[in-house]
């Protein structure tokens, strides 16, 4: 098994700031915007983006949530073992809101497909955008593309892209892991 560094902590820092800046460019005061981190690993990206928006742009009353998609997945009963669910925390109605999904790696697009269904349980959003830190292009199963994109990565199916976070894994880094 070999491990290659795709992004180090400094590069991640720069990318996150750029993504936050692009969000501000489109959403200005975030009055009707809600940021939704996709469980389990999108919540770390969402937290970082939220901190930058608060500290650098003074956006203190951001609405944020966490969405778990386990019960909306299209591979229930198809895998070896059922996946464990995570907590959903959305304390508001998304009716007529501009929703931004935030995830770490966009791969087949199936998670986002599930998230698009799941979010409807909280109302009908005016629009939904997607922000992903890593876009594994050429490996999509569905016609889903990110609106805000950290870094495009070309990886084959046997390889894995792993995003590590200081608060969870002890360091900020993105690795390409091949068998």
């Amino acid at each position, binding site marked *: 098994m070999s491990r290659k560094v795709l992004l180090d902590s400094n590069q991640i820092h720069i990318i996150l700031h750029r993504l936050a800046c692009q969000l501000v460019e489109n959403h200005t005061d975030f009055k009707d915007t809600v940021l939704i981190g996709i469980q389990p690993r999108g919540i770390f990206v969402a937290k970082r983006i939220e901190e930058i928006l608060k500290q650098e742009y003074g956006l203190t009353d951001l609405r944020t949530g966490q969405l*778990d998609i*386990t*019960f*909306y*997945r299209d591979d*229930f*009963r*198809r895998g070896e*073992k*059922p*996946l*464990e*669910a*995570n*907590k*959903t925390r959305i304390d508001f*109605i998304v009716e007529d809101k501009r929703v931004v999904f935030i995830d770490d790696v966009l791969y087949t697009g199936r998670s986002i497909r599930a998230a698009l*269904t*799941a979010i*409807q*349980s*909280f*109302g009908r959003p005016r629009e939904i955008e997607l922000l992903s830190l890593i876009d594994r292009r050429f490996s999509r199963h569905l016609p889903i593309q990110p609106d805000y994109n950290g870094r495009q990565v070309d990886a084959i199916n046997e390889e894995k892209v792993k995003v590590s976070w200081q608060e969870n894994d002890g360091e900020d880094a993105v690795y390409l892991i091949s068998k």
Partner: protein
Amino acid sequence: MSSELSVKHLLGIKYLQKEDIELIFKTADHFKEVINRPIKKVPSLRDITIANLFFENSTRTRLSFELAEKRLSADVINFSAASSSVKKGETLIDTVNNILSMKVDMVVMRHPNPGAGIFLSKHVNASIVNAGDGAHEHPTQALLDSYSIRERLGEVAGKKVVIVGDILHSRVALSNIFALKLQGAEVKVCGPKTLIPKHIESLGVGVETNLKAALEWCDVANMLRVQNERMDISYFPSTREYVKQFGLNLPLLESLKKEIVIMHPGPINRGVEITSDVADSDHAIILDQVQNGVAVRMAVIYLLAAKIKQ
């Protein structure tokens, strides 16, 4: 913790591991959040069909199961013995196999005979959920009772629970004893001696015939209904005498030195095992039990469905 149950059917608490209960509760936490959303439905089980077979009357359990199934997007068919070919002499296996040949994946069954679910699980090819078999077990009720205790008191381990009333005819009592002991709670039963099974101590529970003493001891009191319909002989002289000795009323509750939680699996006979002022007081979590019932049953069905391979 495993993300999978150790069993293929839910026939009784007796067949579960402690980890199974933990997994069911953890999953139920998520479903409790789901059923409090504006849209209370997830699509997980859209390719699963469930038959609810009720060979014995039920309102609450049946509605709760049906709602749980629908909240998971399963297709549901209902069957009650009153309007079926059972009356024409069909056997249980034949009835169920006929239903299964219509491509049903899971059977939720209530039956007056103890062991009916276990019998069925050996003869038909579907996941079986026991929704009450005679005076044997009612596993989902015990799970939702423990879940409600956990929700109110933080955990079940170490808590003292007294089950009051007709223990002899109660499947709720037996399943609760198994579930509570498995999770490390202390259990006593309390009621007229005629309604407490002999040798119940062998299950590791204490026996108390004085209600006040039992209430002083416990953190939680689970008040059972007197099941007149299952009594072929007279087990106590009169309802009035039962109420005097084993009925819970507000003055008695307030005379205790501590606050206790009151539970009841329903249906309540108001004024018999529990008075209205107690049932409607803040001590009672009876309606929480009902709400939790849907979430717990969703968890059970979801986790069993996950084991049905395509």
